[in-house]
């Protein structure tokens, strides 16, 4: 029984995507008074896990207690639900656009294992840094940038500086 494989569709014009995301952010501010977010959701999920394993520790540690203290369902949180939506939206779009595929995205010059190790390390560094900056590109750069928060603009500039700085070292991984 063969499943019909969709052909990968071309990507959308980035300006249209940006315009659409911009409208989404406006709508989000209109309804909730704040924009989007991502790191908060991951932190909330982690806090829920920690709380399930060691409740007293979770309540004592200020990094987790904000998410689990005094709430019956810590996952019933705006950012967590939003991230669930992002996953769902990505899934649907990926299927419809023919881009759903189990694979490892990497440059041609490194191995799968190296790529996965780098992905893990990069993720670790990003999440750790995101706690310092109080946000990531979705929450801080996009939403904060739209309301002209200086921190958001500084963050964005720094991200680009850091990215370009390390791109040379990483070129073997990507090109």
């Amino acid at each position, binding site marked *: 029984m063969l499943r019909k494989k969709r052909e990968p569709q071309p990507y959308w014009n980035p300006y249209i995507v940006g315009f659409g995301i911009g409208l989404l952010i406006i709508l989000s501010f209109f309804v909730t008074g704040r924009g989007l977010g991502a*790191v908060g959701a991951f932190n909330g999920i982690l806090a829920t896990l920690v709380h399930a394993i060691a409740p007293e520790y979770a309540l004592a540690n200020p990094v987790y207690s904000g998410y689990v203290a005094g709430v019956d369902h810590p996952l019933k949180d705006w950012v967590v639900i939003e991230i669930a939506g992002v996953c769902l939206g990505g899934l649907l779009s990926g299927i419809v656009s023919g881009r759903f595929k189990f694979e490892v995205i990497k440059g041609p010059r490194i191995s799968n294992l190296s790529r996965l190790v780098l992905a893990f390390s990069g993720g670790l560094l990003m999440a750790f840094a995101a706690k310092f900056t109080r946000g990531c590109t979705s929450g801080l750069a996009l939403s904060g940038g739209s309301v002209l928060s200086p921190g958001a603009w500084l963050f964005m500039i720094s991200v680009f500086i850091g990215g370009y700085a390390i791109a040379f070292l990483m070129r073997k991984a990507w090109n």
Partner: protein
Amino acid sequence: MKTNYILAILALVGGLSAAFTNYSSRNSMYPTWKFDSDRIEGKKVDLISASYLADLLYMKEQGFVLLDAREEVSYMGYHIPTALRYEKWDSDPGEENSWFVLYGMTDEKVAELSDGLPGKVFVLKGGMDAWYSEVIFPDFLQFRVRNKNILEQIIHRSRYFGGIPGHTQHLNINVRESRYREGC
């Protein structure tokens, strides 16, 4: 490619016209929100603003009960008009579905008391201090108001509650303080 030009023109028009308009800086604007919810001492609490509470009382809204959670002495000295003492509150079995507004000197102690009430409870954000600085003695050195009508309403309302508009009460109620968890 044509869509790019359309978007660019939209942006240009939107941005260019922005250069010719301005509106007051946000920082010291008179608080205009009504409801909010926040975590006080780790507990999720619903909040109501002093300004909105004043509007409700001014319009003689009947559907809620206003409770004062401070000591007797303070209550006797001055309490928000129509407020009853929290300790003396005895729910009348006939009254259902009313909601409560609870206030004290500070928000933290009051938040704990909200569990003891049979109905939805809103804590007055900023307590008595907010009542003084936003309603009774609105300090126009500190709060700026967007337009003249609102200014007149605030002054009128202040007098209605026996206050003195423009009197200087130095209290900084930052409406936006950690309303959400930090970061995203």
